[in-house]
Structure formats: C-alpha cells, structure tokens
C-alpha cells in the first residue's frame, strides 16, 4: 500500500525551532543567526560588533564550533556572556542544541542573542534554530562567485557582510558583480562592506543591528 505523507523531513527540528522562537518572543529577545565560511571573519566581526554594542544593549552569544572553545574564549574576554556548543564534527547547529544552550543563559536579562553558527555555507542555511533573522559573512578572499554557488544561504539571509574589504586591491574579487548577484538573488538583502582588522564599515552594520533590536 502507498501511504501519502507530505511530511517535512526537518519537521522534528522545525517544531523545536518554533518553541525556541516562542520562548525568545515572550522575553522580547531578538536572535541573529550569524553564518559564513570558516575563516570569513565571523568571530572577528562579532568581537568588533560586541565592543560597540556593550553598554547600549544587553547581549549574549552562543558559539557553535566543531571542536575547541577558542572562539568562546575570545568573546568572554570582552565581558560578554557566552555559551560554547561543540558539534564534534557536526556541520551545523540545530534547534535542539540552541534549546539546550539557553538553559544556561539568563534570558530575562537580554535584548539580543547572537548565535555564531559552524563555519559552512551549505548546511546552516537549512536548519531553523528559532532565530528572527540570519546574516552571512562573505570575505573578499573567498571570491565573488559564492552567492550563486551557494544561493540558499544568501537567499535566506537578511544581510550579507562583505568582510576583509581592505584586501580588495590584492584580489580579483569583482565587487560590482558580487553586489549584482546578491541583489538579483535576493532583491531586499542589505549589503555591508567591512574590514574588521581596519575597523571600517562597522558603524553602518551595528546601526542596522541596533535597529533590529529597538524597533
């Protein structure tokens, strides 16, 4: 016999994500799922962003990594509460991991929770963790062809941060072509150009982020 199901393969994850989203909404917390390749500068962007946000809003971080607590230690040095999740080889964070991590966070004392996902342009895009919006970091050294090679992550993200913009003169990265590809793929996407080591472009990005929290 043929049983008709039409059941979402990720429904088990999506159900937990919906619970997370409800939990965050009830406490008025805005959650950003920050994604990007390994080495694109997610943690450095986070350090720069946090140093501008601390004192303005109450913020905490969940760090997703395959192994080690290196990134969490970097965030902790800024005096920001951080929970480390090690996926032990797993390529993405899922809703259940976030649910579990939130038990150790003081959610009543938060405006913004930033989740730094595992470095990967494929899998994290597929898994809802209960966030309000996604953002993806693309560094200049990765090449301008990435938006069309990994369309889903750029389609799902509200913003793209083009990081390491100071390296533009040393690469064949075509900024106009990348911007055109991003916009044709996702007409309403916000694009920021930053250099986290030089500290450029960060004000626009943090203002946008603050706008998401205090809207």
């Amino acid at each position: 016999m043929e049983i008709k199901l039409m059941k979402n393969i990720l429904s088990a994850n999506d159900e937990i994500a919906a619970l997370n989203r409800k939990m965050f909404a009830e406490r008025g917390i805005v959650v950003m799922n920050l994604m990007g390749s390994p080495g694109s500068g997610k943690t450095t962007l986070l350090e720069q962003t946090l140093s501008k946000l601390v004192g303005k809003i109450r913020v905490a971080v969940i760090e997703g990594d395959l192994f080690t607590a290196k990134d969490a230690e970097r965030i902790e040095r800024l005096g920001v509460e951080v929970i480390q999740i090690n996926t032990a080889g797993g390529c993405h964070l899922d809703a259940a991991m976030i649910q579990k991590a939130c038990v150790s966070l003081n959610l009543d004392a938060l405006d913004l929770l930033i989740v730094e996902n595992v470095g990967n342009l494929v899998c994290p895009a597929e898994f809802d963790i209960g966030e309000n919006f996604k953002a993806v970091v693309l560094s200049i050294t990765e090449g301008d062809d990435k938006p069309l090679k990994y369309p889903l992550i750029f389609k799902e993200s509200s913003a793209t941060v083009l990081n390491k913009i100071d390296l533009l003169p040393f690469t064949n990265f075509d900024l106009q072509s990348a911007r055109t590809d991003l916009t044709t793929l996702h007409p309403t996407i916000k694009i920021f150009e930053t250099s986290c080591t030089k500290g450029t472009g960060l004000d626009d990005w943090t203002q946008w982020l603050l706008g998401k929290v205090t809207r």
Partner: protein
Amino acid sequence: MHEATLAENILNIALDAAQQNRATKIFKVGLTLGELVGVEVEALRMSFDVLKKNSPADDAELVINRVPISATCNKCGKIFKLERYNFFCPECDGVLILQSGRELLVDFVDCE
C-alpha cells in the same frame, strides 16, 4: 554534509508511518526535494542505505522527485520558472517571490 541527518529523519518518518499502518516491510520512500535546497542526492542515498540495515526498510529504495525553482511577481502576478537565480521580474519592475524550490518532504511510503 547534513545528508546523514536528513537520511535519519527520512528513515524515522517512514518507519513511523509503516508502524502506524501495521506494515512490516517498506519498499519505497518517495521524496520531494526542491532545486534550491542544498542536498547532495548521492550522499543522501548512501546515508539512507547505511541506516536502513536491519530495519523494515532494509530493501527500501528512495524515489526522488526534484521540484524546479518557481516564483511569482509581486506586481504583474506572472509565474516564472527560474533557471538562474534572478529574482527580478523579466517583464516588469516587480520582484519575484519564491513559490517552489525549498521543498524537503517525505511524499509517500510504499509498504505492506
């Protein structure tokens, strides 16, 4: 490489459906996968074949139906099938809203 996670979920959904219908043998599991989802079909088949061993789905085969990316213009209302990822309307100045291509579904389970 989240194909192993997907294969595990697919197997669990199929086994649950079979059990609820008092079936002991699964022959086919039908999937609907949108073209926009990042699934490597060969890796998915391989993971499923490993996980299904010693279960009622031991001999089950995945039947995969890929759904093209389609989108509707928010101004003129026309529906377009997208070959490239251009979400600007080719016929007016509207923007295309995704209609299909994000599917990740267990469509049917063939069992007895």
